């Protein structure tokens, strides 16, 4: 499952918002092909942690290395790093002025130098994969939340990323649409994609996670495989959290 070198490595990372410590001495290694799920109460710093991996948040102390590149080094071209890091947001953030196909082809044509035809073919392929082929010409405002999120996943995949980051991808969805998005994510996991996912979907965590990480107040309090994690949670705050959520 894992190679010896981590593809993402965080070392003693701190992030402060005024008095608040959003990340408190976080260290974490994620290996190629690994699926890591981050859980925790709201305000625990899990989204901040995820967003610091592609520098949507800059950290105040510590080191983050992605695929051998120090993301906070001023000499690093962060745009290049981000091209290999797919990100999926809670609110989808599709480009409303572009139709579904254009949402997928914009980045590959402008950033990878792909021809429009090649990008269209790729996009059609990806839309098939997320099971939404019939909506290629639709504008995002015509899609349901679940459809928008599946398009957003396909948009990220169009850059052929090495890692996919998911920031609460189902939290803004109506309950009946959560399943269709999780199905896409499960399939992606089976294909061997390296995934880091902040979520409240415990069923998903149990099914696909190699490792679950519990955060509270900016700290990683517990991590482990799903069997251990749900059966014998050792930290009292995790026990309490699981009681509330399950």
């Amino acid at each position, binding site marked *: 499952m894992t190679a010896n070198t981590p593809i993402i490595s965080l070392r003693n990372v701190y992030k402060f918002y005024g008095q608040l410590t959003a990340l408190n001495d976080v260290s974490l290694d994620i290996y190629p092909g690994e699926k890591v799920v981050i859980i925790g109460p709201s305000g625990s710093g899990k989204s901040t942690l995820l967003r610091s991996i*592609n520098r*949507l948040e800059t950290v105040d102390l510590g080191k983050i290395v992605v695929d051998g590149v120090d993301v906070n080094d001023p000499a690093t071209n962060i*745009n*290049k790093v*981000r*091209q290999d*890091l*797919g*990100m999926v*947001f809670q*609110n*989808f*953030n*599709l*480009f*409303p*002025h572009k139709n579904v196909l254009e949402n997928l082809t*914009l*980045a590959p044509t*402008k*950033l990878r130098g792909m021809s429009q035809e090649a990008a269209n073919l790729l996009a059609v392929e990806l839309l098939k994969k997320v099971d939404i082929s019939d909506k290629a010409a639709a*504008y*995002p*405002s015509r899609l*349901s*939340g679940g459809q*928008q999120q599946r398009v*957003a996943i396909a*948009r*990220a995949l169009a*850059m052929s990323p090495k890692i996919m980051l998911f920031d609460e991808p189902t939290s803004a969805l109506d309950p009946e649409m959560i399943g269709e998005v999780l199905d896409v994510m499960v399939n992606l996991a089976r294909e061997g994609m390296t995934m880091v996912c902040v979520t409240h979907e415990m069923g998903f965590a149990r099914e696909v996670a190699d490792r679950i990480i519990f955060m509270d107040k900016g700290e990683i309090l517990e991590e482990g495989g799903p069997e251990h994690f749900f059966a014998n949670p050792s930290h009292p705050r995790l026990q309490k959290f699981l009681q509330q959520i399950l």
Partner: protein
Amino acid sequence: MENPSQQHIRIEVSDGASIPDPKDRRIVTAWSISIFGAITSLILLCLLKSDPFWNMLQFVSDGVIVTFQVTIFSILLAIPIGMVTGLGRLSQVRAINLVASTYVEVIRGIPLLVQLFFIYYGLGRFFGVGGIPAAVIAMSFCYGAYMGEVFRAGISAINKGQAEAARSLGFNQSQTMRLVIMPQAWRTILPPIGNEFIAMLKDTSLVSILAVADIMRRGTEYAGQYFNYFEAFTLVALVYLIITLILSKGVSIMEARLNYYDR
């Protein structure tokens, strides 16, 4: 779906003509009453009292072209000035931000008429600026400042998530602005720019003082010759009103068209 960036936002900065509501399908509206009234009055006056009204209308019509010339040149200059100013006001770099903000503060604090005199008579002492160039320079710098606010508001109305999505795909800041933010911002920016255009067209009447032969100037000239001020300014008012009403309808149609991706 509840994405705030997709909500319809309307920005009104200056006192431009109010835009008719494009969704109002009724026949009797403030707009239709005004346009019908203005055109009928103009036609009736020209038919029933062709001297002076018909003669005046012919005399003033040259001025319409000059008014449009000044307005169009000024808006074409004011839009890039406004865009640079708006982006400057949004810049994180303090020096750029200060330059843009100071420009807006200074220009907004000086009446347009004073700016016109300053450029025509004041700078004219050193450079010799013609009436129309002076008018265009003053109008475009003045409206550029107002338009900077339109751009700033239009750009900051776009949801932060749009920039984050673009950046996370690997677009740099200027690509994000050009490919993702501005195409969406135009939709909120264009109607108020249309509005500014109308406001500007009315304000060009001020340049008649600089011997620019616009509608207002032609009306004044005619009135001065035949001493029929009441008739002359009735006609001038009707001409301005008809032009601005037609333009405001145009802006309203444009505004409706720009919402194509919400439907």
